[in-house]
């Protein structure tokens, strides 16, 4: 940390002289080792996700019953044709993990889009119009927040039926309140400011006010929340799939792979270890970036 924090201050001081706020933030971000580590991890997963069919040595669904439960290459009996070993259907674990990154990234994107869109909408409307509308919306958010998110997601998935699509919807819905609260807070703060009142006096419509004048000013906390949202969406989707409520077999989803590997815990440690490790790494990547972004974008939290 010594090496991170000291130059960070310098660069900040330097940046303030010559650059705009966004460039400044990016510069700070580049100097933040934690964020850089996060970006590297995420990029690796993105590459895996985008180029799965070229990177993966096998079809993730192809079964080869002769090669059931082969250990990883460095273990006795392992071979280079299955670098991380195979599962109980003789499917290549490495290929499944690579394709799994595609699903996890997709889950992140879809779930976060849902919560970002509805959360922003709810928060903006509540903050802008205030009064009864605000009261109703925020009360609703309180109700959603009164459940542990995984429990609410389980009930929603039970209601919609277990599938990857529904798991994504459930996870998206569950985190709407987080975004709504952030946006509402920022809107209330900005709304009171002179420039908004001025724009209003000049006859700017509500929609214009919200989208052109107010929302851009709460981008920073939203970006941080979105990044962290990716992390929790991936984690929660894996948990749902692990419980049999998300992606269904034979989909190469990490949580579902873990659930399958659980039955093999005695015979194939690799079928349990690697999918879990992937979940951890992907979630860690987004958490690292989110942390770094918070330091870089939110001057109040900076030391």
């Amino acid at each position: 940390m010594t090496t991170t924090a000291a130059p960070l201050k310098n660069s900040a001081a330097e940046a303030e002289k010559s650059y705009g706020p966004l460039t400044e933030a990016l510069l700070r971000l580049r100097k933040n080792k934690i964020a850089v580590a996060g970006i590297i991890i995420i990029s690796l997963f993105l590459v895996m996700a985008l180029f799965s069919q070229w990177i993966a040595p096998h079809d993730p669904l192809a079964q080869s019953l002769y090669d059931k439960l082969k250990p990883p290459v460095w273990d006795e009996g392992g071979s280079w044709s299955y670098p991380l070993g195979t599962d109980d259907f003789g499917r290549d674990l490495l290929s499944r993990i690579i394709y799994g990154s595609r699903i996890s990234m997709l889950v992140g994107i879809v779930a976060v889009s849902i919560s970002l869109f509805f959360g922003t909408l709810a928060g903006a409307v509540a903050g802008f119009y205030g009064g009864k509308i605000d009261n109703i919306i925020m009360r609703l958010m309180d109700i959603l927040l009164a459940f542990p998110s995984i429990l609410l997601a389980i009930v929603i998935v039970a209601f919609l039926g277990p599938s990857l699509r529904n798991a994504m919807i459930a996870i998206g819905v569950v985190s709407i309140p987080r975004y709504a609260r952030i946006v509402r807070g920022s809107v209330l703060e900005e709304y009171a400011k002179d420039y908004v009142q001025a724009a209003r006096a000049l006859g700017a419509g509500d929609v214009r006010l919200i989208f052109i004048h107010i929302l851009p000013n709460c981008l920073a906390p939203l970006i941080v929340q979105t990044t962290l949202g990716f992390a929790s969406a991936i984690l929660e989707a894996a948990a749902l799939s692990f419980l049999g409520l998300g992606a269904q077999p034979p989909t190469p989803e990490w949580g579902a792979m873990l659930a399958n590997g659980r039955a093999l815990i005695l015979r194939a440690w690799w079928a349990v270890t690697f999918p879990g490790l992937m979940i951890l790494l992907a979630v860690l990547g987004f958490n690292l970036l989110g942390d770094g972004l918070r330091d870089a974008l939110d001057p109040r939290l900076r030391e």
Partner: protein
Amino acid sequence: MSKFILHRFLSLIPTLLGISILVFFMIHMIPGDPAEMMLGERASEQSLKELREDLGLDKPLYVQYGLFMARLFRGDLGRAYKTNEKITTEIAERFPATIELSIAAIIIATIFGMAAGIISATKQYSIFDYTSMVFSLIGVSMPIFWLGLVLMIIFSLNLGWLPLSGRLSYHINLETVTRIYLLDSILSQNWPAFKDALWHLIMPAFTLSTIPMAIIARITRSSMLEVLRQDYIRTAKAKGLGPVVVYLKHGLKNALIPVITVIGLQFGILMGGAILTETIFAWPGIGKWILDAVYARDFNAVQGGTMLVATTFVLINMLVDILYAWVNPRIKVS
């Protein structure tokens, strides 16, 4: 103060009412007929009809909600479909297991999390600070259902140090009063049972504590750092007080406020984590029970269970708010 508490308490009512409506209607719209599920392949129209009548499922939904609320006010959550046992009894039999697990987890998380946070803050930018913060980031990102399995492989399968699952070995007899086994064994001075229960508790509690521990470590560190920069700490140091006295007495006391808030909030997260932890370690608690009830479409059980968890969560939040206001009187006004 009492006005604040009363106000805070009254504001719970609409929230709880909303929770009950949300829970009730969402659960009753879950596809799948509980009667069909219970009777399986052998169901006949006759037995299905009788069962639906017995479960009260033949009435319109709003009537069912009315009955549900009427019962709720009498403290009656109905009966579980599968066992025909009162939901309150079912919960009373399982909730203590979850409480034991959660409290153990929060204690582990608080002790280790705060210790790491305090040391990190006092030795900012040291190797310890660096490692503990990296570990806390990993902790926040941990899929605990995986961690549980990995711990099982290591500590039960390979090393054989800890029992695999359950709360008590079969050869141990324990008089249960509170159903919190550690407490029960202390009450009856049954030390072999105490040791056995403790041994069973370690792995699940540790697994469940991972995420809160990491969060507490981070909050303690940053709140400690902030306090340490304050003038009175410098004054205390200047007065020549030893570092331990300064950090623990003056620093920690003031850094505690945000930490307490966070610990309170972690209880909600624990309830969610308990579902996963209990499933893995065959811990007979409320989380596993709710999950089973969802699978079995046991509407009364899911309703009762989620209402309980949500209410507990809301109540703990309220307590934290009150505690916070009590420690920090400026809050009260807003």
